[in-house]
């Protein structure tokens, strides 16, 4: 690992991201749009365990935002590869692991920025924060974003052309999102849905965040924490392996 190299990769991501206005605009508008339409719209008629629906899905929207931004940020790598940007980085003496970590840091930073915007919006729908809850939420966001960015980078390093981008939404993002309990409670699900949901690491991230945001949880905190951290660690390891094998 080479710290100055990791910093260079991260800095490059920051500079380019904040110069791409459309990316920032859609990153901010998207989650707010979801909250307003889905949450407030359905929330007018539905409440779950005494909690407003928009408050209930708040954790889900937060995770959805991190999910989209991290996976797409990582998979964007395929574009870097196609236009020779990445090649120039790969011929430097930086190790693949360092390049990978620099990219993950970039993905995490974006997610933290987006999460902060959404969390601020939480005040509008009466979410109560304490210093403890907000720090725990941010730490969870960082770990989850690291894992998801690693998944995205692994996908980006395996893809050969940007044409496969639609497939990522269909086969990675949507199943992970809809089977995570982000939009509905896990009690009373048909058995096949229960199995799929329990197998999805995102479920535990949603559950952990929901317990911190509105005090509702399905699994124990220990289960949630262990699975969230293990997911991030395993995803990072697999991502580094995929990066090592990547052809320029």
């Amino acid at each position: 690992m080479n710290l100055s190299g990791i910093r260079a990769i991260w800095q490059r991501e920051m500079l380019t991201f904040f110069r791409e206005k459309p990316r920032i605009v859609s990153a901010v508008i998207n989650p707010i749009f979801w909250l307003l339409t889905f949450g407030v719209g359905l929330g007018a008629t539905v409440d779950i365990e005494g909690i407003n629906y928009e408050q209930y899905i708040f954790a889900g929207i937060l995770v959805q935002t991190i999910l989209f931004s991290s996976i797409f940020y990582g998979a964007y790598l395929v574009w870097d590869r196609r236009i020779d940007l990445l090649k120039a980085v790969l011929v430097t003496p930086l190790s693949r692991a360092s390049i990978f970590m620099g990219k993950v840091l970039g993905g995490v930073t974006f997610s933290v920025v987006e999460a902060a915007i959404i969390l601020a919006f939480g005040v509008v729908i009466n979410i109560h924060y304490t210093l403890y809850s907000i720090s725990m939420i941010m730490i969870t966001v960082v770990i989850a974003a690291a894992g998801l960015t690693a998944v995205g980078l692994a996908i980006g390093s395996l893809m050969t052309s940007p044409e496969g981008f639609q497939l990522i939404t269909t086969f990675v993002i949507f199943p992970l999102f809809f089977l995570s309990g982000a939009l509905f409670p896990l009690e009373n699900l048909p058995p096949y849905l229960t199995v799929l949901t329990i197998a999805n690491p995102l479920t535990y991230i949603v559950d952990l965040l929901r317990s911190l945001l509105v005090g509702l949880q399905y699994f124990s905190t220990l289960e949630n924490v262990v699975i969230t951290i293990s997911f991030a660690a395993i995803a990072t390891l697999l991502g580094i392996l995929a990066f090592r094998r990547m052809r320029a």
Partner: protein
Amino acid sequence: MVTNTDSCFEQRLSKKFETNNENPKHKILKVRFLGAPFLLIVMPIIQTVGLTKKFGKITAVDNLNISIEEGEVFGLLGPNGAGKTTIIKMLATLLEPTSGTAIVNDFDINKRPDKVRESIGIIFQEPSSDELLTGYENIKLYAMMYGLPKDKIESRAKEALKLVELTERKDDLVKHYSGGMRRRLEIARSLIHRPKVLFLDEPTLGLDPRGRENMWNYIGNLVKELKMTVFLTTHYMEEADALASRIGIIDRGKIAVLDSPKALKRILGGDLVTIKAKSLKVDELKKLSYVTDITQEEDETKIIIENVSQNLQHLLSVMGKIESVEVRNTTLNDVFLRFTGREIQEEGESGWFDKIAQESTEKA
């Protein structure tokens, strides 16, 4: 390696390390040290040993054995798809060879790719600068990736930008640069860590003729000022002729011939006489002592003859009725044609710059 020697031993040693002239593996310098004669054997800075790359059934690079001396400008000349970029990618450790290997600056590309990467700079065919960064930012970030100490990064970056005359535009975003400026920026970037070998993959592809000539000047100056070894690929004859001290002509993954531009042109042995005539007795012409080569294409016959001023008159007199005759010096294009049996592709080529232009029109 330094060896004490006498003349007999010297001969034996020379023989031992001798290969053919086009492909010297070791340069042997005779030096005197403390009054005694020594042979100094200089290892080449790049040496490929049976370097081969296959993509499925296609052999892109076929058992390549070349060596390049330190300080030399080596040009790999060939049409698109001849395997030039694949060779550069393998030497720069971006692509693993199917078999064989290469030594770059004393390190094996298969065993120590990290060490190889430290000592090389490379400019790709396609632009690889970040459009959303300024020229200076691009260079600074790469300096960090090469692990330069902080206090050196700024001075080196400024020095490199000055060398390619981009100091005034250093704080503009690269997307506002012209094609030639981007290329120059990439040259500056690739020099930031003072590499010993610089790889240039089609350095002037997509540039207009003026931009191309400017680029030649930059590269020429670099070689002189920094005494770097340059390995360049091109499919422009004039480019190889203008820059390279030795040229390898490559076709379908194999080196067809390798020598200095002058020697290559000399291989053809004279000047080119192109004759248009209905009936020519080619077999009889071949018997003439000053004719070195004849090729026929439809109604045109290309004859290479020695010593034009003396022999042209005689050649024309034995030919009978002809429609037209054209005489000119042989060019590298003729050499290419002679060794590969086809013309190098020059026109109808869309370079990366055109591609970008095309893509932005598509977007709009």
